[in-house]
């Protein structure tokens, strides 16, 4: 389960896109993606953002698996020659998939947009559009 801590420093309480309130905290820039952190000073509301549709959940899992696979592949390929084209391409694939995974996470967490939203409005009966229950 992915969770997000949305924090920023301000003396005012403002609603986040998901409707949760945030309290004053010293902000830490790209803090969004750190899941391991020290005990926060003060109140912090954890907003859980999980995929809404089964299809999106499947994409999340697929991307995560691909990362494992491709890191393994790249490590093996590069054992032979770290400067070879195959090695470069293998790590580039890792980067591509890692970024795709992160983009999906941003969409769901930060923007509360499920990429299947409009597709599933039109086609609610498909398997991909079943509401995912955690």
């Amino acid at each position, binding site marked *: 389960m992915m969770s997000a801590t949305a924090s920023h420093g301000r003396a005012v309480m403002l609603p*986040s896109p998901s409707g949760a309130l945030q309290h004053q905290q010293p902000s830490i*820039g*790209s803090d969004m993606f750190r899941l391991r952190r020290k005990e926060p000073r003060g109140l912090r509301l954890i907003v859980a953002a999980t995929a809404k549709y089964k299809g999106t959940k499947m994409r999340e899992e697929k991307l995560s698996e691909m990362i494992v696979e491709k890191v393994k592949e790249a490590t093996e390929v590069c054992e032979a020659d770290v400067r070879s084209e195959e090695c470069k391409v293998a790590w580039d694939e890792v980067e591509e998939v890692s970024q795709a995974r992160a983009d999906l996470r941003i969409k769901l967490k930060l923007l509360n947009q499920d990429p299947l939203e409009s597709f599933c409005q039109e086609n609610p009966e498909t398997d991909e559009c079943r509401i995912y229950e955690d």
Partner: protein
Amino acid sequence: MAVSTIYSTQALNSTHFFTSSSSSKQVFFYRRQNNRRFNTIITCAAQQTVVIGLAADSGCGKSTFMRRLTSVFGGAAEPPKGGNPDSNTLISDMTTVICLDDYHSLDRTGRKEKGVTALDPRANDFDLMYEQVKALKSGIAVEKPIYNHVTGLLDAPELIQPPKILVIEGLHPMFDERVRDLLDFSIYLDISNEVKFAWKIQRDMAERGHSLESIKASIEARKPDFEAFIDPQKQYADAVIEVLPTQLIPDDNEGKVLRVRLIMKEGVKYFSPVYLFDEGSTISWIPCGRKLTCSYPGIKFNYAPDSYFDHEVSVVEMDGQFDRLDELIYVESHLSNLSTKFYGEVTQQMLKHADFPGSNNGTGLFQTIVGLKIRDLYEQLIANKATAPAEAAKA
């Protein structure tokens, strides 16, 4: 917004009547003046699209920069409704953001076979990129391919209507000279290696499969292609946002506190650089003091003229973090040439996206400012295009 050009043609035997052709773009006036008979045809193009290029290595269209930019124009940018759910395109009222990965000529398998990374120009179809950006700029819709980052395949194309503002975002917006010439404004997001490493750790460490070693190896392996093909584009950019580790904390390697430099080219049409205190001077400014209390490590600003790849530039630099709303407002009130429409607009825009990474430091600040500069450029360009044909008609 209509832009019109006026033509004179052969005379006809009629006076003062009006027809419009089936294409909604043309209006015909027939007029007789004195002894001369002539016709005036007014052709209106639907709009002139302003094209912005953004070079960034941080994925497509989902980056917070794009969100901030589209937000300046109002409205949220969303993927096209009812289309491919893996589309990279974002559309809002005024802007359409296109991901240049869609112009990959080789899909993932193809690149593996040829031994090229996505950074390599050989993996991209610049001819198609040029044709389509040119078409959109002239107000013609295009069927643009979709590169699916999940499957690594090229999907069926999607129809893109010409927007008022077209943003092309990706690895190579300024690589091809023809495409470069179509850009009305270009931005390069230059992340230093240390910051890139810190961000990628934050991005990837939670994923199974990744470790510090794999993250490092991935960055190292991509470096040669990045330096050969992507980095050189920064010399062409009208604005470069450089993100570096802070100088306020000795030996900081967490990449949380950042030093961000906004490098603005001088002499760019419709673009007047932001400055502190007085243009062309050199200033070092620490806003924290009696009027403003900041927490550690505080904030430091610099402004100076400089030279960047043989161009004259002005550089505004911010090191540190904003803690509170009043710090932001105080800083905003001392910056000049922000192209805001009202006092506090920068602060308001930053607050709108307070959840986005970079909201408390120079990345968010300068991205927002660049957004306002683009709005200013757009308005000037449109105003200019409206007056030019009217002047021609008087002649």
